[in-house]
């Protein structure tokens, strides 16, 4: 009862004076716009960059503590830095033979992946469209594909070595056979999922087979194809490292195996970090191309 009474009785002028006073006293100095921008950048850093940095630091500290104990089998980060300093700071050195910087090993691996993956993309999209469009082809090929796609990538290596009698084409074939299945399967699903509406439009316009393929099938299937390509590139990168361990020569896989044989554990750790980073880049690159090409292909 007393509260509303006091509000009602409070004289207007007094309140105004109080407000004026408050404004005068609390008006902050206008911040310059640069300051606002700086604040935005800082809050972005705090929100996005700080958490992974803190986590990474935590992981390194735990690793350092664990591996610094006497009898530790793996080197702590400080020792990795010390032992593999040359490898980390100069990825471009080349002393002939297998004694090259990581850049050259990664480049050799990437070349194999590029070739095998490109072949897989062409053949995979072609086969995917075929079994997507023809029920007969689906029935004929699907059982074979279902069996072949479960074969682990490395199991193909001895067979391809026997067939090609050379390590490089064998490695490329392993990439090909690893990457092709997700591309085939996703493409065929995409072709089967072309909306009936688009087919009707094509029928009313009397598009020919080739026109239908170029104007309807490909654009409608692009998002599916890129899902397949994204999975395929990831699997390729997984397979190439394993395959190169066996075939030897220049390449990141054999580099790791060679480092193990030379007991250069620190080199292995550095190489693994590089392998991971390149894998992420490959994945992002395919995804970026997919987004670019499939712009506007979603319905509605």
């Amino acid at each position: 009862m007393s509260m509303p009474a006091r509000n009602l009785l409070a004289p207007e002028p007094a309140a105004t004076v109080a407000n004026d006073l408050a404004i005068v006293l609390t008006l902050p100095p206008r911040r310059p716009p640069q300051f606002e921008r700086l604040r935005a950048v800082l809050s972005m850093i705090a929100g996005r960059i700080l958490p992974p940095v803190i986590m990474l630091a935590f992981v390194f500290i735990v690793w350092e503590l664990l591996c610094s104990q006497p009898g530790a089998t793996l080197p702590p980060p400080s020792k990795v830095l010390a032992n593999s300093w040359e490898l980390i700071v100069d990825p471009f050195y080349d002393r002939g033979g297998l004694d090259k910087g990581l850049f050259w090993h990664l480049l050799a691996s990437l070349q194999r992946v590029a070739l095998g993956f490109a072949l897989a993309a062409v053949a995979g999209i072609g086969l995917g469209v075929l079994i997507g469009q023809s029920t007969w082809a689906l029935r004929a090929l699907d059982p074979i594909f279902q069996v072949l796609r479960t074969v682990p990538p490395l199991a193909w290596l001895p067979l391809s070595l026997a067939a090609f009698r050379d390590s490089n084409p064998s490695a490329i074939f392993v990439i090909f056979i690893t990457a092709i299945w997700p591309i085939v399967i996703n493409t065929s699903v995409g072709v089967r999922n072309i909306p009936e509406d688009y087919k009707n439009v094509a029928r009313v316009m009397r598009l020919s087979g080739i026109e239908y393929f170029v104007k309807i099938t490909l654009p409608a299937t692009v998002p599916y194809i890129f899902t397949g390509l994204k999975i395929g590139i990831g699997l390729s990168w997984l397979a190439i490292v394993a395959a190169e361990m066996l075939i030897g020569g220049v390449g990141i896989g054999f580099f790791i195996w060679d480092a193990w044989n030379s007991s250069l554990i620190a080199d292995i750790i550095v190489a693994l970090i590089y392998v991971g980073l390149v894998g992420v880049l490959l994945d992002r690159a395919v995804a970026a191309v997919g987004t670019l090409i499939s712009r506007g292909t979603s319905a509605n």
Partner: protein
Amino acid sequence: MQSYLSIEKIGMSFERAGARSEVLREVTLHIERGEFVSVIGHSGCGKSTLLNIVAGLLTSTTGEVFLDGEVVDSPGPERAVVFQNHSLLPWLTAYENIRLGVDKVFRRTKTAAERHEWTEHNLDLVQMTQAANKRPAEISGGMKQRVGIARALAMEPKVLLLDEPFGALDALTRAHLQDSVMDIHAKLGNTVLMITHDVDEAILLSDRIVMMNSGPAATIGEVLEVPLPRPRRRLDLAAHPDYIRCRAAVMEFLYARHRRGSGLHAA
């Protein structure tokens, strides 16, 4: 005697899991050149099936469709369809969606420059010139349907087939599009077959309204001539005695005698 578009004793049955369901029975309908005919009925009565048969997208079990003296046995641009859900290709702009059909139909008879001009002309016809370079995802539902209409018109069809073209639009947008369709029909004199479930839309646009019984085995119940003079104006019609009479007749047919599910013998 044959009309411009003759639908002769069309029957349609579907076989599903061994069970045979008859959708249409002995549907006969004659449409003259330049006529605007609506088919109205409850949903599920087979009116879209009828349109798809005329379009050639479905093949009837019995009966034939003749257009301009020729048997209809496959889809084609001379029977262009405006689909209910616009069916624009989302990866093409409004212009490209129309141009695709134009290029296909006039590949031999028009030069590239003429085809470009014709595409622009049809965009202009549906007042979509300003959105020519927008993709379907960037324009509203009404605008998409305008582009869909332009795409169909641009193929210079002998008969334009509208499959509940405004069903998915809000009332105001629908009214605008109905006015546009009326203008275009007045200007070009197309032969139009429209499927609808909207009584006012049917009366406003059509010369004749074909009322279908509810399925199964739907037939044509009644055909109503709409004697209203053209050009018609939405506002003037509301109080017009013929309009009120037509409306009463269609409502009577749809709701008093052929309620959905009441079958053929409800009357």
